[in-house]
């Protein structure tokens, strides 16, 4: 029986070790990924602002958000509704813009990069652009995805977005101000939400749409929370920041 006892003891120790390992994984996933991703994303935003910040005259937007003291808003004569400048799709994992969502606070800013895979974009940079969908301001459906929980959780408060809210994209050339028109909860296979005309696969593009996808419910992969919007106006950089960024969100 001595041998049996020893084997049982070793099995018990291995089970305890496995339990500790799983516990550590949960701690890492739920807490540490935010720390890691937060660090990286702040650095990315700073880099991007260094590149484009020079032309964003009048607007002192930094990784800390909008400085309301010094900010100038874009005057009406620079708000255009005609064809905006549209970037070509960049290389995979290249950061091409920043997203601001006033509903989530004036300090909310996250980088957007090309591609939606986890190891190189969503787990590291934040918001990922679905390859093949329109770029910001483009004819069709500018579609992005991001984590609802963990890794900096860019879209954690997606359920608070209301119809009429603004979602603002900044690139090196322009500001694109989208207005939210609604949301839906779909299955993970519902690729029609990022079709050129949202939810109408096969249709020719008939507008400049925005689609944001993230997981639902929180901490689950069972469904997707999807927010749709359309381009309200665009403005060249260098004339301040969109007034939507500093207005009180009701």
């Amino acid at each position: 029986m001595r041998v049996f006892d020893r084997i049982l003891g070793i099995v018990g120790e291995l089970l305890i070790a496995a339990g500790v390992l799983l516990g550590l994984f949960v701690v890492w996933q739920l807490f540490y990924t935010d720390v890691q991703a937060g660090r990286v994303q702040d650095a990315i935003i700073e880099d991007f602002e260094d590149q484009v910040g020079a032309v964003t005259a009048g607007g002192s937007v930094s990784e800390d958000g909008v400085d309301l003291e010094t900010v100038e808003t874009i005057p009406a004569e620079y708000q255009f509704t005609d064809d905006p400048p549209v970037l070509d799709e960049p290389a995979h994992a290249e950061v091409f813009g920043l997203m601001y969502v006033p509903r989530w606070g004036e300090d909310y800013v996250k980088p957007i990069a090309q591609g939606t895979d986890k190891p190189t974009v969503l787990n590291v940079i934040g918001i990922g652009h679905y390859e093949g969908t329109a770029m910001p301001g483009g004819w069709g459906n500018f579609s992005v995805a991001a984590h609802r929980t963990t890794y900096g959780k860019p879209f954690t408060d997606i359920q608070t977005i209301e119809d009429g809210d603004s979602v603002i994209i900044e690139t090196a050339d322009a500001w694109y101000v989208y207005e939210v028109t609604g949301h839906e909860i779909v299955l993970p296979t519902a690729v029609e939400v990022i079709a050129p005309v949202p939810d109408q696969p096969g249709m020719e593009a008939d507008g400049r749409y925005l689609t944001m996808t993230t997981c639902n419910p929180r901490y689950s992969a069972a469904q997707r929370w999807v927010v749709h919007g359309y381009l309200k106006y665009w403005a060249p950089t260098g004339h301040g920041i969109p007034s939507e960024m500093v207005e009180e969100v009701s």
Partner: protein
Amino acid sequence: MISTWIWSRLPGNAWIKALIVAIAFVALVAVLFEVVFPWLEPYLPIQDQTVEGG
């Protein structure tokens, strides 16, 4: 037992042994958090945020 086997092979008195164990545990957690878990996570189907066919 694995734990008693390791304990009996660590040098020094009980305090030094405890210190070595603590340092080894912190090092293990660092390797797991920075290398192993980030590598493993994309293969686990625990969360996804994109829509895709299939």
